[in-house]
């Protein structure tokens, strides 16, 4: 099941907002996991209609990350991200792109684009958000 992740500044209404956007288009949420990490709200979910859900969220201006990325949280210090990419490098797993999605309060949330394999997830299990 392909997952979607929404990361925003922690706002109590985020979960309700996401549910409402999807409900309006008749998209059903199948699994859901919401948490607050530092100052961010993170909602990870799966739906019955994946592509439509992504479009609905985009139209509503909610930044959603698709299945193609692994999201991690790391300390905001020089080389922190480099050390993560080193793990992939050593494991000979190719990262297509590494993007910082948020950075504040001493931490960064980062999207790694690579195949979402068990091996890849294992490499970042200590910092994995979704």
């Amino acid at each position, binding site marked *: 099941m392909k997952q979607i992740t929404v990361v925003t500044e922690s706002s109590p209404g985020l979960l309700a907002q996401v549910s409402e956007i999807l409900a309006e288009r008749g998209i059903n949420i199948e699994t859901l996991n919401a948490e607050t990490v530092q100052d961010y709200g993170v909602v990870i979910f799966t739906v019955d209609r994946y592509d439509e859900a992504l479009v609905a969220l985009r139209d509503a201006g909610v930044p959603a990350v698709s299945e193609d990325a692994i999201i991690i949280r790391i300390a*905001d210090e*020089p*080389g922190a*991200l*480099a*050390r993560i*990419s*080193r793990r992939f*490098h050593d494991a000979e797993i*190719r*990262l*297509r*792109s*590494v*993007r*910082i999605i948020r*950075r504040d309060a001493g931490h*960064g949330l980062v999207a790694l684009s690579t195949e979402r394999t068990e091996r890849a997830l294992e490499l970042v299990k200590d910092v994995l958000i979704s």
Partner: protein
Amino acid sequence: MEAMTEDKALTAEDEGRLDDFYRAMEVESSRSLGYPSNAVFDYSDLYRFLHFPLNNIGDPFVESTFRVHSRSFERDVLRFFAKMYHAPEDDYWGYVTSGGTEGNMYGLYLARELLPEGIVYYSEETHYSVSKVLRVLALRNIMIKTLANGEIDYEDLRETVRIHRDVPPIILANIGTTMKGAVDNVDTIQEILRDFALPNFYIHCDAALSGMILPFVKDPEPYDFAAGIDSISVSGHKMIGSPMPCGVVLAKKKNVDRIARSVEYVGTLDTTISGSRNGLSPLFLWSAIRKLGPSGFRKMVVGCLKMADYAIDRLREKDIDAWRNNNSVTVVFPRPATPVLEKWQIAVFRDIGHMITMPHVTRDLVDELVGDIAGTEP
């Protein structure tokens, strides 16, 4: 035989719509403070060229059988920029693009062809057009943090390059970031690359706005071919001003020639990204260059920098924490309230907003904006 045209007029309703649109544009263009578009220019002496289907299709340096084009003007424009950016005299190539994005695309395309295994490093505050280009070109890429002023974080870059030292680096350096006008120091970047003794690397500069500022200030940050870069993209509609978006990209000819050799289907070699290309924008740029020239541009840039300082002074008087980077006309301040953003077409990024003191921005306009910001709670 008669030409196949028939005179058709617009309806009164359509005419009315155009009139309304005209009036709206008159107001909006002069009140724009948040986007780096110069709104004062007069190209009316060039309007007669709107009668021709100008098309600068293909390489501006190769003659074409199609003769309704302005390539000789385009080459003059390129020569002007090449000289200004200290490109090697007989070893530069480039063209007038549709804007900053196409220039970045060309630079990164060239980099990829030269270093197919390369990884692109670019900072967090890079314009989103670069992410788009990276995706289109399927280039591997790693985003690097920025310092508080918007410059790339050199320590983070160093650590990241260290880990991937077996992969050729392709650096996308920002010469004026979109939100803070920050300039990545290409000297410092090259020191880092040299420390790792990397034999092959490529530096492309996204100089969308500041590519028309730095040549005209006393102490420019290093940014051009003299500083060791490989290609540069600058927008034409930003500082110079143009009725249509345009830009210039320049690269080293020896690099362009190297990739030309590797293209399979020799004979149809067209080195530009788009095929048919705008033949009017080179005329606009050429005419601005002829009329203003380096001294006119310098005056314009000095005026914009002064206006930026004026804005900072006025904002600080109201206890608004405003600042700008060295040699930048982008004045950064805390994100203002929504009505202010809407009225002034101000772009925001997280908790900051900015005003860009382009040549059409007057003291009156700045005063009015400052009054609005100070008069509302953020």
